[in-house]
């Protein structure tokens, strides 16, 4: 019974959170106070864990909540609930697009959507940039800190590496993780 409830609870989060991982946060706070399944402290822990593991925040959160409320079956049910509405909606849109992709109006809409999509990705990149080099709190001392200098040098090397070699992105991610540990980069 609790599994069914978990499924529908997360399906409603999946249905109403539009625009990516952080959009699920308000729903999680609401769920925490409604059900008492987890505390708001659990949510901040989970954000930290999500930042340190692969995968989207929403999926991580639904797995975690599912696990603490109903063990392994819950950990599977939570994320399944979360993704079900998206899969249905996107499948419908996909077939709609396939049918109308030669349509002029649809093409004109995409003419406007593509630069917007690129701009939103660039904006997300900029907010990660701030987090990566400066951290969440800003003071002018940051620019002379060791973490900042190491980060800037690393970014330059990675950029050169990406441009000059055909290595898979994961290679640069792994090297950066190693560099972070070796130089003790601590951007908070």
């Amino acid at each position, binding site marked *: 019974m609790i599994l069914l409830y978990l499924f529908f609870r997360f399906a409603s989060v999946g249905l109403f959170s539009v625009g990516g991982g952080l959009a699920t946060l308000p729903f999680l706070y609401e769920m925490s106070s409604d059900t008492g399944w987890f505390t708001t402290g659990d949510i901040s822990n989970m954000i930290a864990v999500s930042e340190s593991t*692969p995968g*989207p925040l929403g999926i991580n959160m639904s797995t975690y909540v599912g696990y603490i409320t109903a063990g392994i079956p819950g950990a599977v049910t939570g994320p399944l609930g979360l993704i079900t509405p998206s899969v249905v909606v996107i*499948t419908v849109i996909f077939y709609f697009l396939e049918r109308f992709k030669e349509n002029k109006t649809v093409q004109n809409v995409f003419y406007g959507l593509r630069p917007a999509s690129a701009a939103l990705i660039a904006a997300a990149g900029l907010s990660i940039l701030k987090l990566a080099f400066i951290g969440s709190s800003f003071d002018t001392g940051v620019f002379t800190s060791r973490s900042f200098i190491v980060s800037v040098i690393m970014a330059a090397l990675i950029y050169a590496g990406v441009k000059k070699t055909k290595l898979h992105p994961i290679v640069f991610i792994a090297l950066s993780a190693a560099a*972070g540990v070796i130089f003790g980069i601590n951007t908070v």
Partner: protein
Amino acid sequence: MSEYIQLFIVFAKVGVMTFGGGYAMLPILRREIVEKRSWAEEDELLDYFAIGQCTPGIIAVNTATFIGCKRKGVLGGIVATLGVVFPSVVIIMIIAAFLQSFADNQTIKYAFCGIRVCVCVLIFDAVSKLWKKAVVDRPTLLLFCAVLLLSLFTSLPVVLLVILSGIAGAVYKSVKGGGGK
């Protein structure tokens, strides 16, 4: 059958290599889906991301469903989606069961500070490649700048920005006449 298994594995690979949310997936996805396998074109990837922004659910999941549908229909969409979430579910289960203090570990924190620097360089590289498909003339350049500034300096919902851009594109093209491509 084997094509479904391949879809699952490729998306599980994308899922396990994506650190830091939907946008961080873009460079990996470009590499695996566009460059290595030609399962989608650059402009399709942009379209999927745009639609993923203004439809319910997580962008990573939405994009996986799209590409899966394109490859193998409805079942393909489901398989690709399960693939992309599979690694996270397993990893979080392990962490929830054994490693309560995982995120407090100092070594892990250092590693992720390093990864963040890398992720933003990779995102900018991916954007610069997608740029050519998206910003094709002066109006699209204007739209790019407007959306970038609005999303950085206002708290307007992303959905609204995406919808307005679509309308702007359609209106501009129909006023100018011609249209299509």
